[in-house]
């Protein structure tokens, strides 16, 4: 149990995919314009990560080394397609906004990366913990970026067609925050803040 918690926390923080491993950035930068999108994107990626880690870990002894990558891709692509179909059927407004980024989870480095680096070498429980940690870490960072970009860039936060927070009509939102450059600025500043805090807490 202790080992599982260590795997989970390490994946969540020390090896946070976005802030520490710096993988899966493409989708994170692109979809973090709204809190609602980041929430669903995070859940979709976590689901795929946990499922693919489970299957790959279970079958790691029977997959021939020569074709492990094609097998991983088949497994990952299947789960992504399942998420894609389910979201299209039951959450059409959010699917419409996330659009191509859902199918693109297939090529998200986090998922293939964890399949190759973790699930294919560890037992099932540890792989599930790793998937949950990685997915959770991805989702948390996305949520922070999404909250900041939506609030500052549009002046309000809208979820499920209800305005949760509004900065009032006197606030003139700087649109650049929700545009592509804003994604890089937000990401860069977030990383700077995180590094600063880490240095202060643990010293270097």
């Amino acid at each position, binding site marked *: 149990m202790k080992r599982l918690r260590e795997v989970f926390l390490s994946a969540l923080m020390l090896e946070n995919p976005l802030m520490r491993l710096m993988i899966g950035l493409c989708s994170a930068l692109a979809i973090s314009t709204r809190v609602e999108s980041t929430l669903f994107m995070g859940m979709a990626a976590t689901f795929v990560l946990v499922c693919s880690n489970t299957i790959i870990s279970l079958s790691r002894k029977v997959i*021939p080394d*020569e074709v492990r990558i094609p*097998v991983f891709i*088949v497994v990952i692509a*299947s789960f992504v397609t399942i998420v894609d179909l389910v979201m299209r*059927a039951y959450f059409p407004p959010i699917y419409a906004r996330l659009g191509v980024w859902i199918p693109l989870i297939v090529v998200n480095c986090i998922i293939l990366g964890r399949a190759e680096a973790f699930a294919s070498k560890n037992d099932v429980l540890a792989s599930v913990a790793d998937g949950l940690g990685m997915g959770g870490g991805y989702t948390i960072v996305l949520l922070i970026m999404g909250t900041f970009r939506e609030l500052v*860039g549009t002046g309000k936060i809208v979820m499920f067609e209800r305005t949760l927070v509004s900065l009032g009509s006197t606030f003139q939102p700087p649109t650049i925050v929700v545009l592509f450059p804003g994604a890089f600025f937000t990401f860069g500043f977030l990383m700077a803040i995180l590094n600063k805090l880490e240095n202060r807490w643990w010293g270097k």
Partner: protein
Amino acid sequence: MQQNSPLKIVLTLVVFCSVAAGGLSLTYAVTKDQIEAQKRIEEAKAYSLALPAVKTAEGFTPLGDVARAVRAKHKEVTKVLKGEVDGDLKGYVIVVGPRGYGGPVQMAVGLTPDGAITDVAVISSNETMGLGTKALEPAFIRQLAGKTARDPVQIGKDIDAITGATRSSNAVVTGAREAVDVYRDFIRR
């Protein structure tokens, strides 16, 4: 690393792919009807927004022949429908997808039986959030209400573009222009 026999490699791939295919076809079968239904609801909602006089999806009938004739000339027009309430003609809806900044802006343009624009509803678009999307909001679209084929329906003449979203504004106005043209050339008798 021990060498695996080709047979094992092929068999593993076949097994994995078959299981994946099975799982996918199962999911597809379960979600297929729901996806179709969502698509129809989404479209009908846009039609009703564009032509508020017709509230139900059943009130809209596609004009297949007209649409086919239209498509030969206007490639961006995908559908032409008439809207009726109890057999009473309330107007037309023309679905058109002009090119915006981020790809086609699929929109439904509602027209009265006399060919004046009632409203425009965006079905799907990929315009830049917070900038291009301003051209898809009521404040901008309101300018199009009441326009007919006799009006210029053109940015800079009778329509003001959104600053910083020229191409998105242009797409919406081009779509509206095409819709009134389609009415003039194909629907009005």
